[in-house]
């Protein structure tokens, strides 16, 4: 004989990820490591910005390079002789807290004071996945179109720092950088927004200061 039974599960996958993220943050806090989730569109300048931060800031930096195939970005970071963990997502369009948990295990936390986690180039999926980082920095560029911010509100609403890159080519690509700033301010009135050209290093000093200020503000 068989019977039919209803079984309550109530397992929220978003909540499960959040719990793992909180655990990641506790591990980082214990090691006194400040971490930044670097989000942004493909080709917006995430990797270039992290490279410049390695070169120009006085922090001891480690990088988790997340990508569908991570070896290309990881290779770029390795040349600076810093701890780098490549994180292949394979088919996945975002990092999640579980993937980052394993990457953190491979990162020598006692050798660094700041951990940059480069997310997969994507303005949509990473929104749903907290990684446990202390700060979320979103990097976009004018060449993605000046309607990028208003089309992807959620990622900008939760950002702690927004970098609008490649402003030196705004006129060439016909983009209005001020519109992007205005849209970001509407979604996230208190967020720091910096216009930059990583090629000429315009805005870089400001970005370094904004990251430091944010770190000081949560300590």
């Amino acid at each position, binding site marked *: 004989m068989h019977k*039919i039974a209803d079984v309550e599960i109530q397992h929220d*996958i978003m909540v499960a990820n959040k719990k793992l993220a909180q655990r990641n943050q506790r591990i980082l806090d214990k090691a006194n490591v400040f971490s930044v989730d670097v989000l942004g569109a493909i080709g917006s300048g995430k990797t270039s910005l992290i490279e410049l931060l390695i070169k120009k800031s006085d922090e001891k930096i480690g990088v988790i390079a997340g990508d569908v195939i991570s070896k290309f970005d990881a290779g770029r970071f390795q040349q600076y002789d810093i701890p780098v963990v490549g994180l292949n997502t394979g088919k996945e369009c975002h990092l999640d807290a579980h993937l980052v948990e394993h990457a953190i295990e491979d990162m020598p936390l006692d050798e660094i004071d700041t951990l940059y986690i480069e997310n997969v180039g994507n303005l949509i999926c990473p929104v749903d996945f907290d990684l446990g980082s202390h700060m979320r920095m979103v990097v976009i560029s004018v060449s993605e179109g000046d309607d990028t911010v208003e089309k992807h509100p959620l990622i900008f609403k939760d950002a702690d720092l927004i970098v609008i890159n490649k402003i030196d080519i705004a006129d060439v690509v016909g983009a209005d950088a001020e519109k992007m700033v205005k849209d970001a301010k509407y979604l996230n009135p208190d967020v720091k927004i910096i216009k930059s050209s990583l090629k000429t290093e315009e805005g870089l000093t400001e970005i370094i200061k904004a990251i430091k200020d944010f770190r000081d503000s949560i300590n």
Partner: protein
Amino acid sequence: MHELSMADAIVKTVLDVAEKNQAEEILEVTIEVGKLTMLNPEQLRFLLDVLKENTLLEGAEIIIEEIPVEIKCLSCGYAGSTNLNDSDHYLVIVKCPECDERNLEIVTGQECNVKNIRIEKPE
């Protein structure tokens, strides 16, 4: 856009619970998906249908309940649902419909919850 990993996590959760409860067949699965998640319910359903083949879930009916967005305004105290406009469906997270302030807390709408299953098991 990450429906496949979500569908995979849902299937694993369901099969794990079903096995622990000695299910011989899963008849029904109910999943709650919040309207603010980056998940498209129809894509999620399609992928669940693909993943459930050759498992205890094979014959199960998948019920997806969409969870509306509810907010709490920390300025005026308004709590509840809000008018969702499909052409600008994120507006709700930016401004309170009552007082226009931006000091909001999102109460519901961000879930991907495996709520319950109906199974057939031996007496």
